């Protein structure tokens, strides 16, 4: 990818992340940490690409672990975040 273009993406993404969190109430810090933990679970996509191009047994083994770990990050992150936020929802309806 074009190096300069990537630098712009880095900059804008960093601002986006900073701005989104800046005004969050303490009550949501734990779910939000968990939620952002889920979002970097997208690493599973990168791991799939790495495994998809793996040729030797070593590459396949590392790629396999990377995909499994990434999938666990995404799935686990989603479930725990959803469970935590689900409790807040119930409360508001009451």
């Amino acid at each position: 990818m074009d190096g300069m273009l990537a630098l712009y993406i880095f900059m804008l993404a960093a601002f986006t992340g900073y701005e989104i969190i800046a005004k969050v109430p303490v009550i949501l810090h734990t779910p939000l940490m968990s939620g952002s933990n889920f979002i970097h679970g997208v690493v599973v996509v990168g791991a799939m690409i790495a495994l998809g191009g793996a040729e030797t047994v070593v590459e396949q083994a590392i790629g396999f672990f990377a995909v499994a770990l990434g999938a666990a990050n995404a799935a686990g992150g989603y479930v725990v975040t959803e469970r935590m936020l689900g409790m807040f929802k119930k409360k508001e309806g009451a």
Partner: protein
Amino acid sequence: MMTLPIYVQGAWFLGALLFIFGLKGMSSPATARRGIVVAGYGMLVAVAGTFLVPGLQNLALMLVALVLGGAGAWISGQRVKMTDMPQMVAIYNGMGGGAAAGIAAVEFARGGSHHTITVVLAVIGALIGAVSFTGSCVAWAKLQGVLKKAYRLPAQNAVNVVLALAAVALGVAMVVSAPARPELVVGFFALALLLGLVVTLPIGGADMPVVISLFNAFTGLAVGFEGYVLGNPALIIAGIVVGAAGTLLTQLMAKAMNRPLSNILFTPMVAAGSGEAISGTMKEVGPIDAAAMMRYAAKVIIVPGYGMAVAHAQHKVWEMTELLEEAGVEVKFAIHPVAGRMPGHMNVLLAEAGVPYDKIFDLDEINGEFGQADVALIIGANDVVNPTARTDKSSPIYGMPILNADQAQNVIVIKRGKGTGYSGVENALFYTDNCRMLYGDAQPMAAEIIQHLKTMG
């Protein structure tokens, strides 16, 4: 980067878009639930699109890995108790860091790119991903109680610095000699993994929330950098957004504890034995007196801590609160920013028990009210109400903002035993004249108080 079909690019773009919308939604209580669901769809779209990448090999292996990792984490995530949530977040986060390091490892093994910027970012991503992986595993082990104490090496900081420099030196060598020799790559990863272990082992449990948050930011950055290596903007955006958000969150937490990040990483709290000796005795009280003191009070402030969560007493405490309110007592909950094991953890636990938002107050909101409270009821909290933090400069928790529970007319402390808090520091509050100790597990004690309140009508 090879040119990919538009539907693959489109899927990743849509994924990135949904992640940002989801995260935005999660930043407000009203839309938080929808936020995670939106982000979840983003993940499904991004993963589904990846299967359509032309020329993808090892598909069977990939499916097995996805199902193994995904289903395993899904089930464990469903089963974990709310009290154990922080270590669960830690371990999932560590896995993401491991995956990011794994991507870099595969790239290095393939001989990958010779382009300097790409190799530099791959190395940096691999380093912080690997540190986040082993560091998060240690964090999990500590909070889960597998590792009971902090292990501190002699000259810990020097060891940390030497290890970090050695890892960076090997990383530089990899960049200069790209494609690097296998021994060099293996040595680099071994050092990076070791670094995560060694840095995290001496950090005490009380500082762990900040460390987990820091590793969360680390993993985000690692994912972002590996996204660049793979030429995948969705990874870059998701990773860097989380990296930035996580960094800010880490700062907010460190500030709430009045523990600069550098202190947490380089001068871990010294356990027990430090700080001034405290004179005086602790005075006991029975559940019936505790019930009477609260029943005939005008205002009660409850300070819940991790001990309440461990005892699963939050439901009983809420039942007790409702009884007191029926009797005309004003009851409020005071939450310290680091009550529980992560900021906001206690709010989650109280929400689970059904305590409405409007009865729960932050430190800044409620600290002025303790002076007008007849009773401050402290349940399983310790360090966050220790007045030593205000006065004793030699104390490890000196300077940490505390809840001013000692300013209430009477203080009742429900506590299992006479031990110290998580920081290992004696609590001066317990020895003051207006403080009474109610020894026992929070749940049966709350139940007894409820019984007595009922008979008092």
